[in-house]
């Protein structure tokens, strides 16, 4: 990792440039490689346009809803202290890191045709409800992404210095004043970025949209790309659709940047935050209700997954455990790689206020089609190495790049505040190089760094990673083994493997995230 010196020292510039170059290679470079093999371009058909419309609509609705539900939940978590709060925060993050199929099974156990909800409704004499269709797609996407939104916003609340709340209390601020003068500016700085991140995640969704969408009305662009590969081997069409996805991503990221306003809270002394404003019985009841509802929504499906798989956990076949070890190793290396890319990108981006190029580049991996990335990488790397031999290395690189946008979302706001609050002081003290990294950057960014590392590790555990073309006999990861068990009819063992995956991902997330927030 490059040590940042003064704003945009040579080391920082090099680090950021290297990271940006790697991301561009994995996104635009792979797309270009696929394009070189394309044979002509057909225009988009009516079905493509309808897929595009559906994709954008459901992504926008899912992102908006996730954000709206996340704001009260994050606020409740920020202003309440209770036993088990840390564990609850970790558990609430779980849906985001589950493999799609596992999460869908969990959701269906609660909201499905024969799920708890419908059984309950039937017992009370009401009609059963069906979640398949647009509502199901949005429900699943909110289930996946609400945890991310809650965590990113909670971090925003925690980053408001305790002194501002003390001042607010001294001035006799009520909850409304707090919201207007402290919380709203914080949200103004954070929500556009969170919205875009979730919008983009939902944009490239494939299995969720199809499985819960109820049929081809819920077709996303990603499925159209898949179809171009699978039957027609029409690389031109696949590349064009992928380029449209990337274009949407860049537009969304730039728009969000325009709407983002710096919060301007200034520095604090890291005192514990006391919230004199939130002690009233009404707010207390409101927060408790919000937390209970959010926990029910996010944890009930998880409980269903655990109940289904726990009995088989002990008797899982040996290859599953081997794959688990391999996945842990992949997750560890991916995390180091992602942080090594994200930190210089965030610091460089913060140092160049008003310029959003690096930030936009960092968001691109969210909108890439994994099929196009995989194929492009295959074309780029095949002259250099045997694809089977580098399967795990490619997995690490792709995982790190895919996690980069989340790392940036966690790091960027904090890095900007760091620059605004301490940049001039550090410069006047001539605090540079490793000393600056050790004395200023790492301590001030400890919390978002821990969160970013935890998230990357957990995502790398759960991600299917590569991409059909690089598979090798001896490189199966835990999620791949889970899918193989399902493919061999072993649904019970697959449920057990899902619990193992969930436990390992959560443990990694908890350990790394915990390391970053000794005071939360």
């Amino acid at each position: 990792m490059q040590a940042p010196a003064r704003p945009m020292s040579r080391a920082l510039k090099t680090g950021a440039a290297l990271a940006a170059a790697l991301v561009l290679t994995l996104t635009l470079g792979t797309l270009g490689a696929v394009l070189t093999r394309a044979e002509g371009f057909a225009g988009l058909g009516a079905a493509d346009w309808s897929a595009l419309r559906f994709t954008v609509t459901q992504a926008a609705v899912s992102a908006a809803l996730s954000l709206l539900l996340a704001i009260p939940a994050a606020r409740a978590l920020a202003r309440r202290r209770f036993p088990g709060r840390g564990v609850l925060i970790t558990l609430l993050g779980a849906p985001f890191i589950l493999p799609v199929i596992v999460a869908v099974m969990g959701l269906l156990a609660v909201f499905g045709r024969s799920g708890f909800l419908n059984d309950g409704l039937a017992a009370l004499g009401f009609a059963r409800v069906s979640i398949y269709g647009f509502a199901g797609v949005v429900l699943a996407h909110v289930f996946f992404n609400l945890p991310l939104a809650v965590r990113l916003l909670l971090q925003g609340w925690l980053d408001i210095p305790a002194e501002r709340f003390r001042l607010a209390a001294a001035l006799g601020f009520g909850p409304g004043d707090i919201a207007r003068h402290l919380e709203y500016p914080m949200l103004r700085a954070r929500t556009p970025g969170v919205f875009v991140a979730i919008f983009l995640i939902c944009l490239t969704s494939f299995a969720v949209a199809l499985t819960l969408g109820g049929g081809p009305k819920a077709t996303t662009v990603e499925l159209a790309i898949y179809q171009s590969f699978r039957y027609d081997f029409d690389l031109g069409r696949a590349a064009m659709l992928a380029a449209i996805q990337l274009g949407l991503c860049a537009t969304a990221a730039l728009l969000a940047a325009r709407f983002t306003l710096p919060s301007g809270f200034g520095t604090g002394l890291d005192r514990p935050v006391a919230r004199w404003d939130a002690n009233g019985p009404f707010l207390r009841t409101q927060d408790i209700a919000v937390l209970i509802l959010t926990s029910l929504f996010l944890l009930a499906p998880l409980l269903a997954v655990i109940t289904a798989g726990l009995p088989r956990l002990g008797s899982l076949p040996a290859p599953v455990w081997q794959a688990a070890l391999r996945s842990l190793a992949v997750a560890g290396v991916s995390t180091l790689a992602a942080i090594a890319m994200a930190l210089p990108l965030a610091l460089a981006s913060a140092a160049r206020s008003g310029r959003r190029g690096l930030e936009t580049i960092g968001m691109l991996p969210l909108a890439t089609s994994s099929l196009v990335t995989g194929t492009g990488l295959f074309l780029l790397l095949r002259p250099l190495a045997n694809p089977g031999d580098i399967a795990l290395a490619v997995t690490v690189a792709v995982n790190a790049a895919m996690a980069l946008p989340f790392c940036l979302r966690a790091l960027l706001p904090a890095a900007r505040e760091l620059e605004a609050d301490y940049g001039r002081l550090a410069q006047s003290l001539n605090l540079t190089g490793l000393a600056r990294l050790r004395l200023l950057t790492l301590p001030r960014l400890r919390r978002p760094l821990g969160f970013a590392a935890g998230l990357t590790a957990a995502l790398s555990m759960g991600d299917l990673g590569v991409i059909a073309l690089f598979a090798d006999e001896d490189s199966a990861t835990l999620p791949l083994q889970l899918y193989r068990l399902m493919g061999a009819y072993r649904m019970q063992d697959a449920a057990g493997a899902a619990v193992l995956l969930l436990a390992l991902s959560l443990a990694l997330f908890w350990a790394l995230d915990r390391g970053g927030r000794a005071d939360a």
Partner: protein
Amino acid sequence: MKKTLSPALMIAGCLASSNVLAADTPELIVYAPDYFGSEWGPGPAIEAGFEALCACDLKFVTGDVMSRLKLEGEGTEADAVIGLTTDQTAAARATGLFAAHGKDLSGLTLPVAWDDDTFVPFNWGETAFVYDKTRLAEPPASFAALLDMSDDVKIVIQDPRSSVSGLALVLWMSEVFGDGTEEAWRKLKPKILTVTPGWSEAYGLFTSGEADMVLSFTTSPAYHIIAEEDETKVAAIFPEGHYFMTELVAKIGATDQPDLADAFLDYVLSDDFQGMIATANWSYPAREFEGALPAVFASLPRPDKTLFLPEAEAEARREPAIATWLKVMSE
């Protein structure tokens, strides 16, 4: 393993149970679908069985076989390819990469005639709707009866655009209903709970109780009976006939191991290979012989009529069949 790269690779290298081979052991590279890499499929037993005969190293390279072949073209490393399906053979043949097999296929026991000179079948099966008899008391006796069932019966199918079995269903219906296919889809539609990207998701929805029926294969119940001693899962057999699917193996023309590739094709047709298909692949072996099937398997109900679309016909019907499905399902 290569000397470069990450700790992850080193750990993986330690974990991988690859045996040390002498440097001059010839290597036979066979491209295969992902399930050949799975410990719960036929891959490991096939590898051990063939290596015991050939004094060679059989290496399965798993993944999306056709995409990889097309990307690699003449430069492919593959010596042979296993697991292609009949909806891929037209495209596979067009690559010009494959050589004639030169095998005597008269011993095959497929329910259809097979005289292809390039592709050798190693298993076969037929699509079917599988149900749980404890949950569906009155199963449909025919495809027509299935369409007329109450809309409360919920079926999960797979998307023909992303799944082989999903594609088989749209072709199956086009063969059974002909000009009436669109109307048939319209009757089936309200019963379709959802459409999944692949077979695994659909089957998972079925076994977890979310759906009453699932598009799968006539042989699916064998797994539940043999591996789980569960006799509640049954395939509905229709007099209109069931859609035939087979998986194929073929030799690459430009292979640097022509003799080994040839020997591999012989092995595929051998008793050893064919005998493990039933319980490793949960399908019928292409060359059934006395004792090739466990008793349970042999006693599964079989359709009287098999519907088979030859490659050219399947290729010609694919796009219109998917278009009809899309049209009705998007209404």
